[in-house]
């Protein structure tokens, strides 16, 4: 029954999403590269495979170089969609992963190096986490992001099992998206979830302060840097001061801030968008890249593999680097000083959950109907909406427009679910709308549930019509 749904769902979702889902099913990661490739970064590390504190690499870091290659290919004359359709077939034959494995190795090495540096930094700071290597499960970002919620919730329960087997109580991860999932979406979907999660940046900042570490100079790095706040890290989890603390601790490094920063950061075009709406993603990345460049810094640091990917592929001439690498180097020449007590605003605050009342059409409908009825339609969310900003405020691809579409969908208006899905898929889940909303609506959560509902309604419609009535393809 469940498998039948999966196969049917692929009739609704675009081929790009199907590609990523197929990869996850085959190889345990969106590109289907398999556990050997994914765990290659950890070779030679002498760390336990069980423990209360787990270092979790996440779905993106270990394979980001391969994704970079794929993204470059999609910008060739071959359109994303054609490549994806082709990719779907190749994926089924296992050929795409094989080809990527060979061609993408070079590009991937720097992401792998960052992971090793992240772990080594922790070790130097007196933290010895466990790592799961080939056993590390994907956190299922693809499933949740694209609205395949039945699969996600089953997957999430499996992840919980594996973490429990390994005795994990707390996860530390350099991937802020993974941290957000473990702190927000896992509690929403897994009853009894009791694993804590913290970002690498938070933990390292805390340790540097409490251990009295004085970071040393980093001669090979640019001295004038800027920092791009990943939206999930800053806006959604309140981690704003910690990366700035770390940068300011490094002697001789000068931080210049971009216009949009902290909780008001600007999107660099990820959030799953680069797969389904590459044109919008590209515009966002370009706008953000230019903004970072306009600070006058030569180097922009950030703390999210997906942001790094999009910024590095934006075409903006600037160096984009991982904060991990800089902190790692600064630690090599560090000295010991006095321990310090530093309190950061909002650190490790509990996140607001939006639990769906079930994942059936009825459950999702009733969850969304209640939320949408609280929207006062003021439009205050629109000017801050990342996608609206690059589309001149096009209402149907703005926050309020999406909420309106969702409301129309739950009211049973005559809409084509595939087309609704297309509008909802443009959203990058940056959360700017939620922060601007006077009614306090969790718009990104609504959009995820809206995607799930659109997929399900599309399937119902297809069944009724016998053919592809609800399909956009």
């Amino acid at each position, binding site marked *: 029954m469940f498998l039948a749904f999966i196969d049917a769902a692929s009739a609704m979702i675009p081929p790009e999403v199907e590609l990523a889902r197929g990869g996850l099913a085959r190889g345990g990661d969106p590109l289907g590269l398999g556990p050997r490739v994914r765990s290659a970064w950890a070779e030679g590390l002498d760390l336990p495979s069980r423990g209360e504190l787990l270092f979790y690499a996440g779905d993106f870091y270990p394979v980001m170089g391969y994704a970079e290659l794929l993204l470059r290919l999609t910008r060739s004359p071959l359109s994303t969609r054609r490549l994806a359709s082709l990719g779907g077939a190749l994926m089924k034959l296992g050929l795409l992963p094989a080809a990527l494995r060979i061609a993408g190795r070079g590009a991937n090495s720097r992401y792998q190096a960052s992971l090793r540096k992240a772990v080594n930094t922790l070790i130097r700071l007196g933290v010895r986490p466990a790592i799961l290597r080939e056993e590390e499960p994907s956190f299922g970002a693809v499933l949740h992001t694209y609205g395949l919620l039945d699969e996600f919730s089953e997957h999430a329960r499996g992840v919980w099992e594996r973490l429990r087997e390994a005795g994990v109580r707390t996860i530390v991860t350099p991937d802020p998206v993974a941290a957000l999932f473990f702190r927000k979406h896992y509690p929403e979907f897994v009853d009894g979830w009791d694993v804590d999660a913290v970002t690498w940046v938070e933990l390292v900042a805390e340790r540097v302060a409490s251990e009295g570490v004085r970071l040393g100079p980093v001669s090979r790095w640019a001295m004038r840097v800027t920092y791009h706040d990943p939206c999930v890290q800053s806006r959604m989890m309140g981690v704003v001061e910690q990366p700035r603390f770390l940068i300011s601790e490094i002697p001789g490094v000068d931080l210049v801030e971009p216009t949009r920063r902290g909780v008001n950061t600007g999107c660099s075009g990820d959030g799953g968008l680069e797969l389904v709406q590459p044109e919008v993603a590209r515009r966002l990345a370009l706008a953000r890249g230019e903004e970072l460049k306009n600070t006058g810094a030569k180097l922009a640091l950030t703390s999210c593999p997906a942001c790094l990917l999009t910024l590095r592929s934006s075409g903006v001439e600037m160096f984009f680097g991982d904060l991990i690498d800089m902190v790692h180097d600064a630690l090599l020449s560090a000295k010991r000083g006095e321990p310090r007590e530093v309190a950061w605003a909002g650190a490790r605050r509990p996140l607001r959950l939006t639990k769906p009342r079930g994942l059936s059409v009825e459950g999702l409908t009733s969850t969304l109907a209640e939320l949408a009825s609280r929207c006062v339609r003021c439009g205050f969310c629109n000017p801050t909406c990342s996608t609206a900003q690059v589309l001149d405020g096009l*209402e149907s691809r703005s926050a309020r427009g999406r909420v309106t579409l969702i409301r129309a969908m739950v009211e049973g208006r005559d809409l084509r679910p595939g*087309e609704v899905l297309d509008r909802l898929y443009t959203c990058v889940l940056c959360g700017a709308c939620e922060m601007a909303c006077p*009614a306090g609506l969790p718009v990104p959560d609504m959009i995820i549930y809206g995607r799930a509902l659109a997929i399900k309604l599309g399937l119902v419609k297809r069944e009724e019509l016998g053919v592809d009535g609800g399909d956009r393809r």
Partner: protein
Amino acid sequence: MVLSEDASEAFSKAIREISRRIGGEKVLTDPEDLIPYSIDASKRFEGVPWAVVRVNSTEDVSAVLQVADRERIPVIPRGSASCLTGAVVAKRGGIVIDLLPMHRVEVYPEDLVVMAEAGATVQRVDEECRRHGLMFPPDPASSKVATVGGALAENAGGIRGAKYGVMKNWLLALEVVLPGGRVLRVGEPTLKWRWGPDLTGLFVGSEGWLGVITRAWFKVIPVPERVVRVVGVFPDMESAGRAAADIRASGILPLGLEIMNAETLRAVSRATGIDLPREGAMLIADVDGPREAISRLAKAVAECMRRAGGEVTLSDDPEEMERLYLARKMAYASLTRLYRAVEIEDITVPLSRFPEALRRIDELAKRYGLPLPTFGHAGDGNVHPTICYDPDDEDQVERARRLAEEICDVAIELGGAVSGEHGIGIQKTGALRRELRARGAEYYLDLLREIKRVLDPNNIMNPGNFDL
């Protein structure tokens, strides 16, 4: 409104022609694109347009109005659809012209003039001016979304209105496209000009039923040297209202003079976390002016407040001032977080009757047993009693409806107006009729109809507002 088959065919042809002339990528016809354009912030009124055209230039607008007029297709100009009265929904179908892509702003600091395209937000205009040490005074609470076109068409006002008035007080010249596609320039972008009756005024408050505003020129002023905020906390709204009237009568013209009742204060506090008194009423007076005069003016304002029974604090700390400004700006928005249905009223009375109006609103709240958070612009006698109710409870819905009528009647009886700044749209057509009748001015709507016949003979412009 659904089209007949013939009309539908004619409409498709018209849309094809528009696409050909201005570019098909600017024209939306998918229902999944149209439904997001069917609403406004009234939360009650909806109407799905037949098409949306996203214009980039005056020429685009002109092309649309030429075709639409020939084919008798209704046209609705639209900014951010933040209006609260249903004025911007496609009541009779038609083409929505989305002006958001037209958002250029140019400041001419030496001339003290700013030019803005219709789709630029009011906040953007002010921000651009501030780069040059200038300011654009109108500041509706919705300024980060309200567009120049929408704010002009609604003659929006805001917190700084006590001293600086509403949109029309700053307008110098307009570019408007009329049905048929004719581009009209009225006024001059100079601080003074006169050619006969000021026709810019014809389009101010017109709610989109005469033509499409594409550009506007405004005068601007230097940012005031200093602002001091005087805050009074009063036992009740009436005494706060008395203080406000007293301040105005003493000849002082505060930049803003804002009033909030206890229910509003509690709601803002809850929604924003800003610490505010929970009982009584609050009056916030912002006094601006040159350094030398400011403390004398502030003291005089404080004295008026004390006389009316207020406890007074003064501040010129920018952060503290920003906090309170935000508190007031967030009033309506905060209520929407606490109540499932909120309907904001917008009456204005002569300043001398302001305390009485507040007292009567208080009495109505008690009589109807519905929460009635009330706040407003005491400096110009404009107050927003905001009716909060449960939309699923029929009895409450009915009570809310009657309460709204009675609030408007208070304004009419006290010699005021049923709308100070939000406009008429669909929501207020009945109330406007009652107001006109009470003033013996029923001819007004007929006069509007005659004017409309001259400029829009086929009645294509946003039909349905004001019942026109």
